């Protein structure tokens, strides 16, 4: 008896009981749709994050003041208070490392911004003109921060879209004066609506020259130093060079380097684990579906008791009967798997049409896994019914007992 014949016999029986076969498929279909959709969402999130990083265009290394203790250096305090990360460091690294196109200092703070009778608590980002290019900011009106020496902090400010609307309404903000933490600043630009990017609510943020913000916040250290690298620069090598130069300059390694690659890698791995976890939970529903298949197969075996007896009388061996029923349940579950993949893909396509921003897509591994799982479900849960069929006593079976 060859494989095609097994499929023929098993398939015949399924087609005969079309309605019952279809019903038993529903469970598998639901499980597979769940896996397909959930992994598509996970993969979509991953691609979304990747795209966001890619949208920055350039390759960035970030330096933060203070030693990251997780790497196991000396505890803070033993080596003294870390040195400030200064604008001088920024200029120094930009000059000394050729792979660094621009060093963009960032001083983050927050404060109350006022105009007329209105006020609002906002994050304040102190930076330079280069920040606009690096973050690909778009202006609705005016210009971003002026070019020139970052040490010379002028009293100008750029408002995020929401901030401008709340303080000025539809009126023109450009050229107006706002007060922020006691200082008077002139609005030189308003950003176009943007939404969230890498965790920063750009629409709700205001931007001012870095030294201005440091002065207002009474800060001596930068919050971050972002090194915008030449297109083909290797982040690892730049980081090594930064460590070397800055450690020498500060007499100790009192800063932390984060590469964009590393951030993305850890974000990706978190998202992958999350995706796997939800896919795993969805896969449990396949086990439930398996019980449905088992039930249907048990009914099928008891309905076809006579037929099993006949097949045995005609010369079918135990093993052949076992195979016939196992293939039958495997066919059921794999058909359910394929139908579920179809339905799931349709849902994913629909989701993509509705939320084009998130690139939903079921990853190839999930498709393979879900088909493999449904096959395993059919075979696994088909064993008991098939075993029962194979073990039937032919004489009793022929009499329908």
């Amino acid at each position: 008896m060859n494989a095609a014949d097994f499929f023929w016999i098993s398939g015949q029986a399924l087609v005969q009981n079309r309605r019952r076969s279809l019903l038993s498929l529903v469970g598998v279909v639901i499980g597979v749709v769940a896996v397909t959709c959930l992994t598509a969402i996970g993969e979509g999130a991953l691609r979304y994050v990747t795209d966001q990083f890619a949208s920055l265009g350039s390759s960035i290394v970030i330096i933060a003041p203070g030693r990251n203790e997780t790497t196991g250096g000396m505890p803070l305090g033993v080596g003294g208070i870390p040195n400030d990360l200064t604008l001088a460091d920024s200029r120094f690294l930009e000059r000394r490392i050729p792979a660094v196109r621009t060093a963009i200092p960032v001083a983050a703070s927050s404060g109350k911004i006022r105009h007329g009778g209105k006020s609002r608590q906002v994050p304040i980002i102190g930076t330079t003109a280069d920040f606009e290019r690096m973050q690909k900011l778009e202006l609705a009106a005016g210009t971003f921060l002026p070019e020139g020496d970052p040490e010379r902090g002028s009293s100008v400010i750029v408002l995020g879209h929401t901030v401008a609307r709340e303080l000025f309404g539809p009126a023109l903000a450009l050229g107006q004066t706002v007060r922020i933490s006691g200082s008077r600043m002139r609005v030189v630009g308003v950003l176009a609506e943007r939404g969230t990017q890498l965790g920063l609510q750009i629409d709700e943020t205001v931007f001012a020259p870095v030294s201005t913000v440091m002065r207002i916040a009474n800060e001596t250290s930068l919050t971050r130093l972002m090194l915008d690298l030449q297109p083909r620069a290797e982040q690892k090598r730049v980081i090594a060079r930064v460590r070397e130069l800055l450690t020498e300059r500060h007499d100790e390694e009192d800063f932390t380097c984060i590469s964009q690659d590393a951030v993305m890698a850890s974000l990706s791995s978190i998202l992958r684990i999350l995706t796997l976890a939800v896919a795993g939970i969805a896969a449990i529903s396949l086990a439930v579906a398996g019980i449905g298949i088992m039930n249907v197969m048990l009914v099928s075996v008891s309905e076809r008791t006579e037929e099993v007896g006949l097949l045995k009388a005609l010369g079918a061996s135990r093993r052949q009967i076992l195979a016939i029923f196992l293939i039958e349940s495997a066919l059921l579950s794999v058909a359910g798997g394929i139908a579920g993949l179809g339905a799931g893909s349709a849902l994913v396509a629909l989701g993509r049409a509705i939320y084009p921003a998130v690139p939903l897509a079921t990853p190839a591994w999930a498709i393979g896994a879900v088909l493999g799982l449904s096959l395993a479900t059919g075979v696994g849960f088909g064993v008991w019914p098939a075993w029962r069929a194979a073990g039937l006593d032919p004489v009793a079976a022929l009499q329908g007992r």
Partner: protein
Amino acid sequence: MIRVEDLWRTYVMGDHELHALRAVNEEIADGEHVAIMGPSGSGKSTLLNVIGCLDSPTRGRYLLDGEDVAGLSDEALADIRLRRIGFIFQSFHLIPRLSARENVALPLVFAGIPAAERRARADRALEAVGLADRAGHRPNELSGGQKQRVAIARATIMGPRLLLADEPTGNLDSRSGTQVLDVLSALHREGRTLLVVTHDPAVARRADRVIVLRDGEIAKRVAGTDVTDLNRLFDFGGGAS
């Protein structure tokens, strides 16, 4: 050749035992046509099932062509049923979703014969029982006699030397019964051993000899031509039936 020695088949029902066969000794030579008769419940089907390797005796020996089947594996027994024995049942046992041709070809499937050859052989077997034009029909589109002839085609498709028929005409009117018996007689004339369980004296009269069972024991052995009416045949001198 079939040889049974001190054959018992005992069913344990709760705390008492029911002997469907008790101490049966019999030898059937190749090419014989033997009828098995006896009142209902006398053990006819049980004997046929043991001989057909569908059932195994509780005690005693069954030698098929000199080989004791007791020690054989499930695979080996299945293979004997497949290649050496053809079964014909009172209720036909055709699979309703399969065409006549597919029903006939089923044993060929288990023998691993390719589809094209199966089809050709099934068609020839159907032709031999006069049903060439019904090959594509489903069982529910066939008369009782036609169904039984399809079942005979199926029983013979692997070319077994031994045919076992359990009341083959029990569900048929006399005309289609006669047709079926003619087919069986023809198969016997080709040299096959034929064992027929029957209630019908007309069926038994075609046999070379008749074994009469009573309560699981062989009560009489008579020649086929001696079978006249059942009352005489089943009168075992005890007076009861």
